[in-house]
């Protein structure tokens, strides 16, 4: 299993990378960590004539707080994100999800932006981006535009990104409201670190009385894109969360899902597992926020 021939150019700056991609058009692909792209090359599912390597662009790696968001530059390694105090303090759901991303050996190369740009419907980081309403920044040689995460994805591995654009940064909103924020993340995979069959994440904000003030819930692996569960969120907000309330909020949740049947699980299995995992993620989120399910 060897890749077809291609050229490799190490971009030396953001401008250089954008210029190279602009020139290459749809013959060019951006190489970040390569943990998904290199297997696709090996299996010849991708046949670019040139790879534009962005690993050497210092401006495109790093994590910081910018206003009310944590700004993660595209080529930030997943390991760096996992070890980041900024993420641990400000983005509880992302912090909970990152240990589920691949294996130690793939996180050392794999990037946050690469995972989001690739858009596997069961991947953890895109799920968190959709759940929290992250903003994705796309640059081309001539323009820059932000896209909301939940309108970024159009299908499995399909996004709103144009062929001359590079995803340069993701801004994850910080919940600064008064109260206690907690998060939970669960998934089912054949082996820890493998592609998830179904994944679910939840983040909640509880006030001093234990009333849910904000909720963000998303599920992966049950449709072509990660799906935010706004109806379920609305049913939780304004209430003291209990097992019964969560159970009611999740009733019929599978009816809105359109999962695939494949060798890893039937569509029915995915719907049932999704509901269970969302419930567990919510229970963990409440406990993480110092609450208890009455």
């Amino acid at each position, binding site marked *: 299993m060897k890749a077809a021939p291609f050229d490799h150019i190490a971009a030396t700056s953001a401008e250089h990378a954008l210029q190279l991609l602009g020139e290459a058009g749809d013959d060019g692909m951006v*190489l970040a960590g*390569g*943990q998904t792209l290199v297997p696709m*090359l090996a299996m010849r599912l991708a046949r670019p004539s040139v790879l534009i390597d962005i690993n050497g662009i210092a401006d495109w790696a790093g994590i910081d707080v910018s206003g009310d968001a944590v700004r993660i530059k595209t080529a930030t390694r997943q*390991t760096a994100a996992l070890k980041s105090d900024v993420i641990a303090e400000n983005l509880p759901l992302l912090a909970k999800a990152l240990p589920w991303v691949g294996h*130690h*050996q793939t996180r*050392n*190369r794999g990037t946050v932006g690469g995972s989001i740009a690739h858009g596997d419907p069961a991947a953890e980081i895109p799920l968190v981006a959709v759940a929290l309403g992250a903003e994705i920044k796309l640059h081309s040689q001539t323009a820059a535009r932000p896209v909301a995460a939940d309108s970024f994805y159009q299908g499995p591995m399909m996004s709103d990104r144009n062929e001359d654009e590079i995803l340069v940064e993701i801004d994850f909103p910080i919940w600064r409201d008064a109260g206690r924020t907690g998060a939970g993340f669960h998934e089912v995979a054949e082996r820890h670190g493998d592609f998830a069959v179904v994944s679910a994440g939840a983040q909640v904000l509880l006030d001093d009385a234990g009333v849910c003030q904000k909720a963000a819930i998303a599920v992966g692996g049950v449709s072509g894109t990660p799906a935010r569960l706004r109806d379920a969120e609305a049913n939780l907000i304004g209430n003291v969360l209990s097992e019964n309330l969560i159970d009611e909020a999740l009733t019929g949740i599978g009816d809105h899902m359109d999962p695939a049947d494949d060798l890893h699980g039937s569509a029915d299995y995915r719907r049932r597992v999704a509901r269970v995992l969302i419930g567990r993620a919510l229970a963990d989120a409440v406990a993480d926020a110092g609450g208890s399910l009455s």
Partner: protein
Amino acid sequence: MSRRDISLTINGKATTGVAEPRMTLLDFLRDELHLSGTHMGCEHGVCGACTVIVNGEPIRSCLMLAVQADGNTVQTVEGLCQEDGEPGLLQDAFRDAHGMQCGYCTPGMLMSAHALLQENLSPSDEDIREAIGGNICRCTGYTQIIDAIRLAGERMKEQGS
């Protein structure tokens, strides 16, 4: 595509070779440099047999291009041996604890274990499982591999004290 000159440090030695852009670090090590200790398993990042350490971090050498490793520091399983080619401490621990059967996954297991023990000489079984979670072994059932890594950590501590 044109072949590129690659210079890197492998197991402490400055090394050069030539690779076309599509050549993985794995193929470069095995076919260009004849360091065949690193094993080729799935070639798409699933099995972990090709694990090597680049700039101090364990990575899958089938998922990194040789051209990307230019200027980097790489450690392979050959680098775990003693200078006379005899097994090093970690390899001895795998032998003593029967941490292998067919041996195919062993180079990758050793490199993942080595990376763990560089940071933690007293890993819990959970730490060890996490460290080798990306390495597949179809023979042992993993238990003896975990024993071997724990044993190596103990021996390294004794040696250090």
